[in-house]
């Protein structure tokens, strides 16, 4: 809720040139680092032959990717489906349970510490068990892991968002004779949105990790995790890094998609908080 006792001028709907200029100054160092980094990668790695076989030049990696792009793309999609499915199940379950726990506070208060503790469990270690449930080759086994990994952070953050409302805001609604349902709809849920989106963004990464790393305990040939592990195992590093690159790109894309939805839904919030 806004508390602004000091006078603040309404934001000037400012000039485009000034904004661009400021943006350039903010982003120039990062751009410089990027260019230097890529150049160093290419240059140093070619120069220092010793490490080359471990970290091939970017150009070699990209070439390997291109040559076997079908394999990489299909592996990427297979794994992404596992991650997406797990994300969808885990995140929606987390939000629903959070709503229940926020509605019946006594239950939420009792269970929250356990949810936080459960969040500390290395869920990925349960991959062999889900493999036994769904079959080692089935995407469902990794989806289950991804879902459980996503569930707890989403639950915890959504619950925090639903319950960290200023008491005065609730009193205001009571002064309007609002029922619990209306309070939820008009106050708690909008208040929770920033928390939910933060959790969802984290969940995208967790889901990807669940899907990929779950494979390290055994999985389908068609999955990215197996590809990485196998290639590394036979010292085929261009393949391994190409697969890792695919994983990174997918991870970033997934995260960015959620961030985009966030910006569209909550333009008001993101702009008020400034950059990151």
């Amino acid at each position, binding site marked *: 809720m806004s508390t602004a006792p000091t006078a603040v001028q309404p934001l000037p709907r400012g000039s485009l040139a000034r904004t661009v200029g400021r943006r350039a100054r903010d982003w120039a160092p990062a751009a410089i680092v990027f260019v230097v980094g890529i150049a160093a990668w290419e240059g140093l790695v070619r120069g220092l032959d010793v490490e080359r076989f471990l970290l091939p030049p970017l150009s070699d990696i990209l070439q390997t990717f291109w040559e076997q792009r079908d394999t990489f793309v299909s592996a990427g999609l297979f794994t992404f489906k596992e991650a997406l499915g797990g994300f969808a199940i885990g995140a929606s379950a987390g939000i629903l349970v959070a709503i229940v726990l926020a509605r019946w506070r006594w239950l939420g208060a009792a269970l929250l510490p356990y949810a936080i*503790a459960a969040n*500390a*469990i*290395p869920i990925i270690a349960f991959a062999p068990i889900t493999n036994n449930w769904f079959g080692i080759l089935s995407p469902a086994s990794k989806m289950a892991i991804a879902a459980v990994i996503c569930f707890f952070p989403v639950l915890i953050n959504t619950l925090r968002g639903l319950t960290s409302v200023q008491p005065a805001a609730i009193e205001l609604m009571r002064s309007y004779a609002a029922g619990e349902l209306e309070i939820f709809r008009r106050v708690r849920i909008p208040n929770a949105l920033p928390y939910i989106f933060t959790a969802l963004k984290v969940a995208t990464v967790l889901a990807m990790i669940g899907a990929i790393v779950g494979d390290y305990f055994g999985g389908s040939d068609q999955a990215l995790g197996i590809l990485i592990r196998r290639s*590394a195992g036979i010292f085929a590093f261009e393949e391994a890094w190409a697969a890792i690159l695919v994983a990174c790109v997918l991870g970033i894309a997934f995260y960015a998609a959620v961030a985009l939805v966030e910006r569209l839904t909550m333009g008001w919030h993101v702009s008020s908080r400034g950059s990151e």
Partner: protein
Amino acid sequence: MLRRALVFVAVLAGLVALYEGYKWIWETAGFTWPFVVNDRTMPHTWDIVGQLFEPSRTNGPLLIEVLWDAALFTAKEAAVGFALGAAAGFLIAVVLVHSGFLRRGLMPYIVASQTVPILAIAPMVVVWLGGRGLPPWFPVSVIAAYLTFFPVAINAIRGLESADPRALELMQSYAASRWSVLWKVRVPASLPFLFAAFKISATASVVGAIIGELPASIQDGLGGAILNFNQYYASSPESLWATNLIAALLGIAFFLAVLGAERLVVRRAPEHVA
């Protein structure tokens, strides 16, 4: 105090009841979705706990002894990794807070690394660091350190920069050196943020350690134990479940350790919320 213990017992009992209830219903009704339920796919909770006190193999030590040693081994890997990663993260944060150029240059990558499934690199790290005269568990600690580094770095930067501007101005009026300002103002301000990161990193380092043991083929830790008992799942599913139970407890133990440390170090006013 007593109430909290009662709630704990109640929740535990509730969870066991849910598990056994689900098992009973699914077995009796013969549902096959999402998966078939029998004593192999879902052993009874008491069998799992009971298995801990059976020998892990014929004439061998009790399972719980084996798992305890494995847990300690993994804990060591994770703790070393956590310490390294946290120290590195904090150091980088201090550097970045004092250099605007480096901060603007590197921050986007540090943040972007949060969106990337870093753990996927584990096999590469193991190959890179293996067989160089370093102890075989070292690459595992490096992986744990890597996972710890990013949350700590980001939160440390946010925390160091969150210092009250008026407190900083006060130090300026004392012509305090940057070192003084760092330790007297910024670091105390960063503590809540640091502990938030530590809580995440505690779990991450345990996960990193377990996962790291897999490509490194380390037998002595929990990762190795999981793979091992996975192979014998058909004959003794309870052993794998028991191993996972111990792994879960390890993660929780690390988390509680951070919580305990936080309670000692950080004193914060309670939030007034509804």
